[in-house]
């Protein structure tokens, strides 16, 4: 019962945040609403006993990505103007893509046979996660690292003064 109420509340936070992101007039508020949505998702992770994921969700999405978005908004000219239009003439492309993505996700959600039986959460999740990163999934993990490294170096080279 308590779990269901908490699930309902966190889902509400996530969904209301997501709706505010696209409906708010001021872009700065949209970005902060996105943070609200992230926090709601982190709450859902905690309900699923995935505390590690929840902490990472806060650390990376709220602490890093949201700040990055806020900075991008604040440093872009005229974006903060409250009189600026929220839509430009390409809105229908975005609507098309969003609608298509929605269909794909719905098809996936409806088709996958979700296991309903609740299995016990393993005791040492972090240890398991850590050893699969450097064991079974070593190659994908390293490839992702190299990709990030390349992006980092690329960003530095673009931003460097000549």
């Amino acid at each position: 019962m308590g779990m269901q109420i908490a699930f309902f509340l966190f889902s509400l936070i996530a969904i209301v945040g997501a709706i505010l992101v696209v409906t708010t007039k001021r872009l700065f508020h949209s970005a902060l609403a996105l943070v609200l949505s992230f926090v709601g998702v982190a709450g859902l992770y905690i309900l699923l006993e995935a505390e590690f994921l929840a902490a990472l969700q806060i650390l990376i999405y709220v602490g890093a990505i949201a700040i990055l978005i806020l900075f991008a908004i604040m440093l872009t000219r005229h974006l903060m103007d409250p009189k600026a239009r929220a839509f430009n003439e390409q809105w229908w492309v975005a609507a098309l893509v969003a609608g298509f993505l929605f269909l794909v996700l719905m098809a996936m959600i409806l088709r996958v046979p979700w296991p309903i039986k609740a299995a016990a959460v393993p005791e040492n999740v972090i240890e398991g996660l850590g050893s699969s990163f450097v064991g079974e999934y070593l190659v994908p993990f390293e490839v992702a690292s190299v990709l990030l490294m390349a992006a980092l170096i690329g960003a530095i080279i673009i931003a460097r003064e000549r």
Partner: protein
Amino acid sequence: MMDLENFLPFLGEIVARWLKGFLPVWLVDVIMMVVVGLLIILLMVVVVMALTLLERKILGRLQDRLGPNRVGPYGLIQPIADVLKLLVKEDIIPEKADKLLHFLAPVIIVVPAFMVWAVIPFGKKLVAADLNIAVLYVIALGSVTSIAILMAGWGSGNKYALLGGFRAVAQLFSYEVPMALAILSVVMAAGSMSLQKIVEAQSPLPFVLLQPVAFLIYFICGVAETNRSPFDLPEAESEIIAGYHIEYSGVKWAMFFLAEYINTFAISAMVVTLFLGGWKGPVLPSYIWFFIKVAIMVYVFFWFRATFPRLRIDQLLNFSWKFLVPLAMANLLVTGLVVKLDLGYWGKASAYWAGNILAGGLALYLLGRFTPKKALA
């Protein structure tokens, strides 16, 4: 005779048992959680009041003056006078402010400051929640602060506030990286992210002796994370007239103040927990040891403020990215190698020493070798 070590947990148990006599079990659990939370919040508010007085007294002493000495004997009632003054001050919202953000920022900055204390072990049996991801939890909460500061900076509708907000976020971002790397080497050495287990791993030697480089990096980053001098650019009075909280007054301003001092105390507590053996110590009960060590660390924070002049923003960022981050990575490499060595405790300890001296010495040598002469003049 009740021994002091078990006194508080014992008291809690008695109260819980008494409540269970006439209340359902789940309600007793909820009540106990709320009571512990309130106790921690109350303790922090009292600690902050004490810290403000201590800071002004110690700064006064270091600068050869008296410090507060008018209200009460030796100025002891000064914090209460300050709080009363802040409570009755007019709450001003600037015309140009973004009302919602201006209102929410002080709330959002103070919540994570209190939340950190849920995982910090005050004593052998005094920890509100011994999470197995406690270290990550603390880092994550620290990163939420930058959102609140940006909200305050933007929401105030003031260019100085906005400048302070930008500075604060750049600083918090830059120093979060070496801080996390320094903590990571401790986590690797202890083999756990639970703060209680990290404390227990520090015997016979605390990590300050095994990981001196990580200790120094963490402490420097801690000073920067709390926006304290010499890293107090975001709220530099003489440059941007207090930065992001320029447009706040009364209770809202007090919230920023409260958060800053709680964070200072929390960073001291984290230094003690991660590096100085936490609540470990002979004879005295564990929580007394914890508070003695934290008080010493807080004193060092105040001492820093009286000693070092403020840095420039480019010096600040260069110091983090070009010195602390590479050093922290080298330290991480050393720790990773030593953890994998099969040497026994003292063999590993010597390997840590050798690695730390090598990494630290090399870093200092490179710093001296490649610093342009005009930067020193």
